[in-house]
């Protein structure tokens, strides 16, 4: 069970206020989609969750504990590009998380441990449909396959939260629909909490249990600098999606009891 709490987050770069007063509580097992126009600070917010950037004020709690100020294993990530290692094979890319975890000095596993790791990696590769490609290098994979590999690689480490930064933005429409279905499946099967940044509204509503729209309240040139983006809409997606039973109890997508009557109107 993982909850992420953002408390009164402000982010400023010099005089420029990017985000103001962001308060979000992300329940365990939910799939939060962050949307908003470009430059509204949604990627900045994700970077703060990742630990790459620090909020100017406010704090982020992961299971009640302040977030480590650098990226670490408890937050997995898939970027739009460069998410997998070009020098490792498909199998090697999935294995590497386990190797980092269990072999501090060599970063390599041998014998029984390696065998178990390979079994687990193969299971994940199967669930993302890459079983037949485990000895290929990423350069030989299509964009969609690379992103599926990146998902498997991130899930291998069993992060508490999975962060996605426009993960499917560079894919062709057909491939994207395919990867959406897979993403949904993984979320249902693995019982993870996901935060995804996207500029694609239909993607946000298709995958998310909750869609949060960031927007600048004031956008006139002379005001722009001093007013950052804040939460404009916080929408529970209807109908609620449910994850598979984990540890004997059903994990419902617990979201605030706010149901938008007209979803697209609310976001625009």
């Amino acid at each position: 069970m993982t909850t992420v709490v953002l408390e009164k987050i402000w982010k400023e770069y010099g005089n420029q206020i990017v985000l103001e007063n962001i308060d979000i509580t992300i329940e365990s097992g939910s799939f939060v989609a962050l949307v908003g126009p470009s430059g509204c600070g949604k990627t900045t917010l994700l970077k703060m969750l990742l630990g790459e950037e620090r909020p100017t004020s406010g704090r982020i709690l992961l299971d009640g504990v302040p977030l480590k100020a650098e990226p670490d294993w408890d937050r997995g990530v898939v970027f739009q590009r460069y998410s997998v290692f070009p020098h490792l094979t498909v199998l090697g890319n999935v294995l590497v998380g386990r190797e980092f975890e269990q072999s501090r000095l060599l970063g390599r596993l041998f014998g029984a441990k390696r065998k178990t790791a390979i079994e687990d990696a193969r299971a994940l590769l199967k669930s993302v449909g890459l079983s037949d490609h485990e000895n290929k290098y990423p350069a030989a994979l299509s964009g969609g396959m690379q992103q599926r590999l990146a998902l498997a690689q991130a899930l291998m480490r069993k992060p508490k939260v999975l962060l996605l930064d426009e993960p499917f933005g560079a894919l062709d429409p057909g491939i994207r629909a395919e990867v959406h279905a897979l993403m949904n499946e993984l979320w249902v099967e693995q019982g993870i909490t996901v935060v995804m940044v996207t500029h694609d509204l239909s993607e946000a509503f298709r995958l998310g249990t909750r869609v949060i729209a960031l927007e600048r309240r004031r956008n006139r040139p002379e005001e722009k600098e001093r007013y950052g983006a804040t939460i404009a809409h916080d929408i529970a997606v209807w109908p609620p999606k449910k994850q598979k039973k984990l540890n004997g109890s059903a994990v419902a997508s617990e979201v605030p009891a706010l149901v938008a009557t007209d979803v697209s109107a609310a976001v625009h």
Partner: protein
Amino acid sequence: MRIINRHPSRGLYILLASLPFIALAVAYSIGSYQRLSVNPADKILPSVTQMMAAMNELMFVPDKRTGDYLFWSDTAISLWRLACGMGISIALSLILGVTAGFIPWVRALVKPFVEAFSLIPPITILPILFIMVGLDEASKITLIAVGTAPLMLRAVALAVEEIPREMIVKAQTLGASTWQMITRVVLPQVLPKLIVATRFALIPAWIFLVSAEAIAAVSGLGYRIFLVRRFLSMDVIIPYVLWITLLAWLMDLTLAMVQRRLFPWFQPEQKS
């Protein structure tokens, strides 16, 4: 059709490629023939037969004073110096280049110094080396290292900095420590570029080797060339120059092959 869109066939390509080589050989032969027919004792443009005779002496007849086969002992000692110098450069560029490219503290410590150091024309410190470490092997090896290390080190540090930030963040989210990232992410991605840097660095390395041998040595390919120069022995100098060229070419070829074999995932032309 525009000439830029016309491509020679494979056979024509080979013909065109070999043309300059043939032209040079023919021009030399004509020049050599003309000079030798005027004066059979001419030393400036020796014939192939004369060169072969001179080389035969150096390759297969032991030297009267030392008993060495000079051509082979020259080659061995020169390659040894080159290998030592390049070895030091490779070690330095791996250790300092990778850490300077990856760890901000080390970068602050190393980078400005190396940048300043690389501006020193290496040949100017040769006298300093002679005075400080003497005239033996150390000064020649140091010259090669000094001449190539800064440039290789900077290439490696740059290669590390060019690794996309996303990849480093990704490694951290998989729980990697700095050490694990260096050994499993950074080094493997930098090694093919180190080979590229080594291939480039071999060019100045040869220059510094021959210079050092020419100035102060009692053996080596460069030493021999500059020794026999006093007797206008073009019949030795020309084959030695060709031999050095051949060695340099073979080294480059070998490194290129090693790079393709060991790093099948690395294709520089595909870099976006």
